[in-house]
């Protein structure tokens, strides 16, 4: 009979240790400038979709307007996709791209 290796008393086997260090790829949700959506509208959409206060929403709106784009959040694929869907429902030019780590 082959002896079975048993853990020593006082030690634990942690199932997650095998996957330690493996993270889900992350994506950036990006909003792009366009000449049609008003700044007030964009601010409102950011507040509605992300629940941001006015100050944060306006900061990102200004980035979109002045720099051409703003990275709104960094998420796993499903959540990033969800946010892009929500923004596009409000007719904003939103895309997602790999975070590139």
């Amino acid at each position, binding site marked *: 009979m082959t002896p079975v290796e048993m853990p020593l008393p006082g030690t634990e086997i942690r199932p997650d240790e095998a996957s330690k260090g493996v993270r889900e790829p992350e994506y950036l949700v990006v909003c792009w400038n366009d000449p*049609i959506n008003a700044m007030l509208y964009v601010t409102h959409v950011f507040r509605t979709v992300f629940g941001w206060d006015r100050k944060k929403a306006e900061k990102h709106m200004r980035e979109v307007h002045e720099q051409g784009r703003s990275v709104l959040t960094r998420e796993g694929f499903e959540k990033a996709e969800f946010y892009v869907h929500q923004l*596009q429902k409000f007719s904003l030019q939103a*895309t997602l791209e790999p975070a590139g780590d």
Partner: protein
Amino acid sequence: MKLVSREPGRLVFRLNSREYDALRAAVALRSHLTRRRRPLTGDTAVSGPLRGAEEDLDEALKAHRDELTTSVDALLSDSVRCALQPRGVRLLTLDTDDANLLLQVLNDLRVGAWERLGCPDFEAGERPEVNEGNFICLWAFQVTELFEAHLLDGLMGED
């Protein structure tokens, strides 16, 4: 269109009969002024999960558009939420969800009209010439912008 009452989560607007008719006429143009959407990634060489995601986005936006059409028609026909007053005046009572729904529809229309006009850059001073082919789009663009401004004033003023 005038904001007559604002409480947390509830806005009431007063529209005269001409404004109400204009709003309904604009909303009725939705099927003729569908807007294009930006690709999910902006990258033509998508593969794997991203290609499937583009199709998902198409389906989601189409379903959302159909849902919006049904919902906004119901809202504007609702005898409670869009109550008829003497002399054809309407009192439009909106909770936050209704206000955002109407806002989405109006902006959708506005963007669709702008695309049909050839995407003029108004900030840069571009002005499309009015002609038989585009005057409806110009009208829709201007009217939706006005209604949007009133809605945003009501929504953003809640801060």
